[in-house]
C-alpha cells in the first residue's frame, strides 16, 4: 500500500493548472504549424500566425494563452493500492485548483448555483472530477481546463442502431457546421460513441485528452476519423470562422460497448487552445 498525502496532491494539481493554461503541448502546436502550411485563405493564415505567436508568448511569460482558463476538469486514475492520507481526495483536488488559479493569475470562471444565483465562487472551484480505480499503486492526475466557448457548442444524440455509420457522420458534421466560428476553430473534435447517455459524453471529453492527431488503433474508427476530418475541412469555416481550409486539426473518436437498442453519440469540441497537463504520483 503506497501512501500519498493530500498536500502532495494539491501541490501537483496547482502546478498542472498553471502548466496547462500557459504552455500548449507540442502535439497541438505541431498541428497548428501544419495547418498554417495548408491554409490558403489570407485571413486564415493571418489568424494561425497570430495563434502561434500567442502560444510562444504565453509560454515565455507564463501567461494564460486564453483568458477563458475554463472550469478545471480533472481525470484521476487511482491505483487500487494507493492510500490517500491527511484528508479528502476531492478537497485536495479543489485546494490545488484554488492555489493554481490564484498563484497563476488565471481567471476564476465558476459560478455556484447554475440557474438562480450564478455568483462567482471566486476561486474557480469546484473542479469537475472524473475518477477511475485502476490496478497498481500509482495516481495519475490529468488537468484539462475547458472554456465555455467551445464547450457550449457540444451536443449529444441518442441515435437508433439503424441510423448506423451515416447517422454518426451526419450528426458530427451538423454539430461542427452549426458551431461555425463560435468554438474558436481550428478545433479538435472529440466524439464518443456507445455506452449510455453519460458514458458517451465522458468518452467524447476523454477523446480530447488523446495526443492530438494520434489515430484510433482500430482501422474502422481510424478511417472514420480521417473521413470526418476531411469533410469538416470542406465546410469552409476556417480559422476563427473567417473562411478557409483548416476548420479542424483532428477528429478523435472513442467507442464503448452499448445496448442492443441504442447508439448514443456525443460531440465535444475543443478550441485551438486544446490544453491539458498530467502527472503521475
Amino acid at each position, binding site marked *: 500500500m503506497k501512501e500519498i498525502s493530500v498536500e502532495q496532491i494539491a501541490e501537483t494539481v496547482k502546478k498542472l493548472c498553471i502548466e496547462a493554461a500557459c504552455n500548449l503541448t507540442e502535439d497541438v502546436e505541431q498541428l497548428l504549424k501544419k495547418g498554417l502550411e495548408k491554409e490558403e*485563405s489570407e485571413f486564415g493564415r493571418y489568424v494561425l500566425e497570430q*495563434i502561434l505567436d500567442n502560444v510562444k*508568448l504565453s509560454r515565455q511569460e507564463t501567461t494564460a494563452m486564453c483568458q477563458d482558463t475554463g472550469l478545471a476538469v480533472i481525470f484521476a486514475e487511482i491505483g487500487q493500492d494507493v492510500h490517500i492520507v491527511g484528508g479528502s481526495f476531492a478537497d485536495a483536488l479543489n485546494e490545488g485548483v484554488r492555489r493554481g488559479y490564484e498563484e497563476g493569475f*488565471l481567471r476564476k470562471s465558476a459560478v455556484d448555483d447554475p440557474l438562480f444565483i450564478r455568483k462567482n465562487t471566486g476561486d474557480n472551484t469546484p473542479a469537475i472530477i472524473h475518477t477511475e480505480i485502476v490496478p497498481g499503486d500509482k495516481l495519475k492526475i490529468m488537468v484539462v481546463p475547458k472554456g465555455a*466557448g467551445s464547450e457550449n457548442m457540444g451536443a449529444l444524440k441518442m441515435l437508433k442502431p439503424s441510423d448506423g455509420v451515416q447517422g454518426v457522420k451526419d450528426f458530427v458534421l451538423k454539430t461542427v457546421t452549426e458551431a461555425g466560428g463560435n468554438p474558436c476553430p481550428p478545433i479538435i473534435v472529440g466524439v464518443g460513441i456507445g455506452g449510455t447517455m453519460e458514458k458517451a459524453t465522458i468518452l467524447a471529453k476523454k477523446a480530447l485528452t488523446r495526443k492530438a492527431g494520434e489515430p484510433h488503433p482500430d482501422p474502422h474508427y481510424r478511417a472514420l476519423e480521417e473521413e470526418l476530418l476531411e469533410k469538416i475541412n470542406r465546410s469552409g*469555416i476556417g480559422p*476563427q470562422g473567417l473562411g478557409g481550409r483548416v476548420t479542424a486539426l483532428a477528429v478523435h473518436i472513442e467507442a464503448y460497448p452499448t445496448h442492443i437498442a441504442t447508439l448514443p453519440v456525443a460531440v465535444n469540441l475543443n478550441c485551438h487552445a486544446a490544453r491539458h497537463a498530467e502527472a503521475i504520483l
Partner: protein
Amino acid sequence: MGQVKKITTPLTPEQVQDLKAGDRVTITGVIYTGRDAAHKNLVKTLQEGQPLPVELKDQIIYYVGPCPARPGQAIGSCGPTTSGRMDAYAPLLIEKGLKGMVGKGPRSPQVVEAMKKYGAVYFAAIGGAGATIARSVKKAEVVAYPELGPEAIYRLEVENFPCIVVIDAEGNDQYKIGVEAYRLAE
C-alpha cells in the same frame, strides 16, 4: 485583406460608415469591457429609466472577461468571448448610441438590423490569442460592477489593438463571405 486602417475612439458616424467588412483595423483610445452579467445589468438599468454607470454613446464595448494582471502588467490574458450571448442585449445599447462591439462569432439578425438602423460596426478579435492582445492594453481600471469579478466593466486604454471588421453598418458579413468563398461541395 488590404491595408490596416487606424481608428481612434470615440467613433464618429463618418468613421463607422468608412469601415467595411473585411477591413483590418487597429483601435487606439478608450474602450469598455462588458460581457454577460454586465450586459444584463446595463439593459435592466435602461429599462428602469436610470442612467448608465458609464457613458456608452459613440463608444466601443469589448466582450471580454480578462485574467488578473501579474504585477507590473496592465491586464492579464484578454481575448474576446463569444458575442452571440450578448445578442439579446446589444440592440438596445446600439439604439442608445453604442457605435462598436468587439468579440468573436456571428450575430443575430436583430443585432445586424440595429447596426444598420443606428450606425454601428462589429469587430472580431482573435479568440484564444489573449496573451498577444494584452500587449495592446496600456491601462485597465474597473469602472462599474466590481462585484462581478472578471465580468465587471473595465475602462481600457488601448494602443493599436488589432481586429477585423466582420459586420459593417450596411450589414455585410465577412463570416458569410469568407466561408462561402472556401466551402467545397460534399
